[in-house]
């Protein structure tokens, strides 16, 4: 029933705006369809609102998308599941629009509604809808139909089940590749609802047709079906029916199909079991790792760790590791890069001995790769190796690699390595860090590129957090404060930024004794940009230092700045003073 306490005027506006010329207003109304429905009550929602929506479906895609989404959760507003079927007609029309995202949403909503509907209603309303869509004149309807079978099928009586299976078979042979693609990608879901007896006959023959489709785009979706179907079949059936398909796919003429296999092969191993994996899938995977097409090798290399995890170590060492060695000097930098991003994960699988003996040389060669992304990928996963072999073995090669990246001529590379410095610091420990990397961190503060200087300042803060204020007091603060005398104002500004970041970590005492004087001093700078940044930094220090200090040191300095000839300096100084006053009032 309508809620009495709902004010009616806004609802009236909302209803009117369903047909407003402004798309934003229509969108807003559709998003609040439930509010309108509650006001109208269940019966009027069923008899007026839903038919109204069914008739007015030639709107902008954005509005249709919103409508498709809202209708998916509309069952309570039409009077519960016994009336759920009234929601089907508007969604049915939305299933036929040409914009894919609207159709997908409509199918999703139909699935949601269908899964709540009573069995008899499914037979009376839902299955006829699926059949209508599957026989639709335009391919869009047929594409949508494919995604509804898994909801419709379980509650269908036997005779309808047979019909639904044969309709699905037809959809898999549709003239339009779009329909076949949709049938292929929904096959797994549908198959999960089909009885085992029919699975082995009907579904498998559908599947076999799809695996031989002329269109590459259909076959590569059938690859995904392998894993889904494999899980449904008994292991021996899987070996008999799915395995040959996978092996065929791994040698498909189209690199895009092989690429899909490379991406998914490890999932298929679980479905077929250990013995066929060893006999057939390991050789298939080795072929993919040595594929002619770099894209396929990239996909295969990216899964090397996942694949090795499901093999026993001997198999991995015997068959996969030699390929990994080859890939580490692959002609494509992207292959090496993909390998570098996962190879660290192999260490725990192979165990310490094999890692040191076989994997370590590969790490080291990748760490010296000419392509910075490869080196970065290795460094980013350093914690994983550290757990297995310890940092000592690596550190000798690590340092040159880090230094080289730190000085790379591409600033994005420098930026990336700065991001990893705190991780490295935690892995390498204070001692190593002090000796080798401390100087680098200071050097970045004077980089030519702003983003690097900014990241460097942030990095100091994270290091201070990692190693504590005492360490920072010794190894960071003196060096940083020294740089405030740099003749270039941009570098002085970086120091101010670093101070504002470090202050919260260092605490009140150090801030007052060491940092604040430097900032106050900088307020005498001749460059206005420095001065208004001083004002900003001072404002940020207010919560950190105690109030007497604020009054004694910060306020006088700010007052002086409010009389500055530069308008920006005056503005930020005034703002900072207001902030002091605000803190005083609230305390």
């Amino acid at each position: 029933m309508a809620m009495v306490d709902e004010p009616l005027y806004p609802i009236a506006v909302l209803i009117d705006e369903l047909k407003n010329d402004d798309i934003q207003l229509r969108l807003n109304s559709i998003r609040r369809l439930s509010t309108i429905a509650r006001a109208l009550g269940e019966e009027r929602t069923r008899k007026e609102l839903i038919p109204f929506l069914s008739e007015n479906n030639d709107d902008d895609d954005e509005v249709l998308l919103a409508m498709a989404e809202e209708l998916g959760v509309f069952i309570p507003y039409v009077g519960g599941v016994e009336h759920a079927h009234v929601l089907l007609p508007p969604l049915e029309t939305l299933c036929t629009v040409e914009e894919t995202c609207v159709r997908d949403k409509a199918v999703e909503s139909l699935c949601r509604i269908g899964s709540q509907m009573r069995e008899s209603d499914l037979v009376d309303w839902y299955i006829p809808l699926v059949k209508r869509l599957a026989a639709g004149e335009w391919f869009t309807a047929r594409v949508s139909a494919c995604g509804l079978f898994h909801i419709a099928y379980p509650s269908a009586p036997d005779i309808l089940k047979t019909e639904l299976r044969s309709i699905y078979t037809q959809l898999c042979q549709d003239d339009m590749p779009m329909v076949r693609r949709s049938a292929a990608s929904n096959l797994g879901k549908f198959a999960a609802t089909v009885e085992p007896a029919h699975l082995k006959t009907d579904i498998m023959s559908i599947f076999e047709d799809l695996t031989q489709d002329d269109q590459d785009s259909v076959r590569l979706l059938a690859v995904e079906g392998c894993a889904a179907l494999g899980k449904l079949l008994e292991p021996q059936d899987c070996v008999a029916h799915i395995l040959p398909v996978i092996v065929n796919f791994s040698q498909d003429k189209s690199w895009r199909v092989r690429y899909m296999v490379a991406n998914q092969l490890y999932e298929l191993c679980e479905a077929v079991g250990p013995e066929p994996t060893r006999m057939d899938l390991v050789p298939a995977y080795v072929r993919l790792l040595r594929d002619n097409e770099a894209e396929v090798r990239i996909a295969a290399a990216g899964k090397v760790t996942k694949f090795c995890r499901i093999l026993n170590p001997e198999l991995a060492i015997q068959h996969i590791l030699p390929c990994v060695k080859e890939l580490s000097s692959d002609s494509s930098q992207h292959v090496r890069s993909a390998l570098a991003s996962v190879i660290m994960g192999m260490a725990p699988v192979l165990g310490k001995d094999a890692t040191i003996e076989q994997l370590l040389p590969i790490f080291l060669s990748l760490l010296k790769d000419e392509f910075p992304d490869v080196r970065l990928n290795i460094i980013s996963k350093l914690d994983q190796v550290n757990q297995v072999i310890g940092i000592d073995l690596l550190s000798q090669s690590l340092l040159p690699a880090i230094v080289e990246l730190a000085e790379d001529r591409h600033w994005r590379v420098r930026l990336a390595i700065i991001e990893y410095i705190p991780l490295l610091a935690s892995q390498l420990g204070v001692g190593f860090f002090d000796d080798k990397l401390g100087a680098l961190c200071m050097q970045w503060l004077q980089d030519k590129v702003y983003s690097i200087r900014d990241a460097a300042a942030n990095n100091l803060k994270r290091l201070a957090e990692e190693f504590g204020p005492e360490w920072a007091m010794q190894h960071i603060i003196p060096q940083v404060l020294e740089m405030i005398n740099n003749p270039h104002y941009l570098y002085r500004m970086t120091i101010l930024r670093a101070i504002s970041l470090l202050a919260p970590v260092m605490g009140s005492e150090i801030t007052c004794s060491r940092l604040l004087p430097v900032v106050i001093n900088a307020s005498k700078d001749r460059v206005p940009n420095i001065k208004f940044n001083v004002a900003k930094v001072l404002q940020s220090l207010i919560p950190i230092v105690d109030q007497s200090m604020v009054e004694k040191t910060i306020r006088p300095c700010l007052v002086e700045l409010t009389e500055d000839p530069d308008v920006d300096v005056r503005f930020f100084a005034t703002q900072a003073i207001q902030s002091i006053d605000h803190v005083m009032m609230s305390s």
Partner: protein
Amino acid sequence: MDNGGGSSEAAAQPLEWKFSQVFGERTAGEEVQEVDIISAIEFDKSGDHLATGDRGGRVVLFERTDTRDNGGQRRDLEMMDYSMSRHPEFRYKTEFQSHEPEFDYLKSLEIEEKINKIRWCQSANSALYLLSTNDKTIKLWKVQEKKVKKVFDWNVHPEKAAGNGPIFGSHVSAIPKSYMANGGCGERNFGCASNDSSFPPGGVSSLRLPVVTSQETNLVAGCRRIYAHAHDYHINSISNNSDGETFISADDLRINLWNLEISNQSFNIVDVKPANMEDLTEVITSAEFHPTHCNMLAYSSSKGSIRLIDMRQSALCDTHSKLFEEQEAPGTRSFFTEIIASISDIKFARNGRHILSRDYMTLKLWDINMDSGPVATFQVHEHLRPKLCDLYENDSIFDKFECCLSGDGGRVATGSYSNLFRVFGCSEGSAESTTLEASKNPMRRQVQTPSRPSRPLGSLSGVVRRGADNSALDANGNAFDFSMKLLHLAWHPSENSIACAASNSLYMYYA
């Protein structure tokens, strides 16, 4: 060797071409506006629609009328003596501005709005979809009939809703006025009080949904997607894949692969740009997907070669799987050899077996299973050979003539100067060679078909077959007019009907 169903007796019989229709005909002495010159023609797959693009960035759509029996244009019917014609007839459907002139501020370059190519896409519902491109930007258009809506029964005073409608503003804003005049008596509107604060007079039950009525429909073209910023050079071709989800765009040096639904990324599949631009000797002139094999595409080059690519083999298709080019006869090389060898257009036959190519002098038909040479060569401009110097001087030698095949693959056609176009039979035993003029009297300049014996297809490659001598035209004193060039034409996919563009006019012929 079968030529795809076109080798029947009927195909061997030369067609008699008749004038069907003209759109945008010029009156005597009328000056043609540059922006009105047609720059692209394309039939859709069914042949029920025809699109043209012009230099002003507009796309004009025509729809077939004879299949739906709309009575046809009376004038056209009267012009022809019989009214029982079942040849395709078209009528103007709609037009829209596809591209606007732009300026690339980074490169200080003007980007013309001229439509270089139009390709139809698969219809997903009753709306029409097509891709159009200028030099840099490809756009996907949807043309559909939209209902002109009238909304009644507002709950609240609708004044604020009035007048902010972008498209149908005039219709909608007209409603409140009439509604106000009606004073709610006609529509039985409870919420009609002119004072907002008095709402609601009747509680919940007074809430009503707007009533929408619509009688008329309106054709509306909407741009669905814009595929931009992927080409450094000028786009010369776009082509849809048979998978219905991807298409390619080709410029002078690169071919990119797009997904129709994704406009912010494309994949470069062919790149012929040399490391050093001074080493550049060859550019891409045209590219097309195979009509049924999703993995095959062909592109032509300025050196007169056609490369067939298998996209299954690798992600970057810089190495071709097949190369079609004709060895030049020794001793014939001249300054112009390379220029006139440049292929201006290629088209796959519907069956996918043959490729038709057009260079400056000839039309060539290639069998994709035979890379030693063309299966047939048709001389189009041989009579211009002595004039190449002049043609070079006035840049005509760089004109890019398009070519087309009939739906059954039995005939080919291409354009020429003086608004002439030529149709050749290419099925076995056919000696058909017709010259037609894009005017209401196409056969006016008909030359008698040379009755030289022709060889069956494929028996000997590279044989100059016929039509080699067109000097009759010159002997007649009909000097070629190089400003009247017929560059663009298209063959109806299922009927013997040709649409061709003579500057701003679209002429249609049937046989």
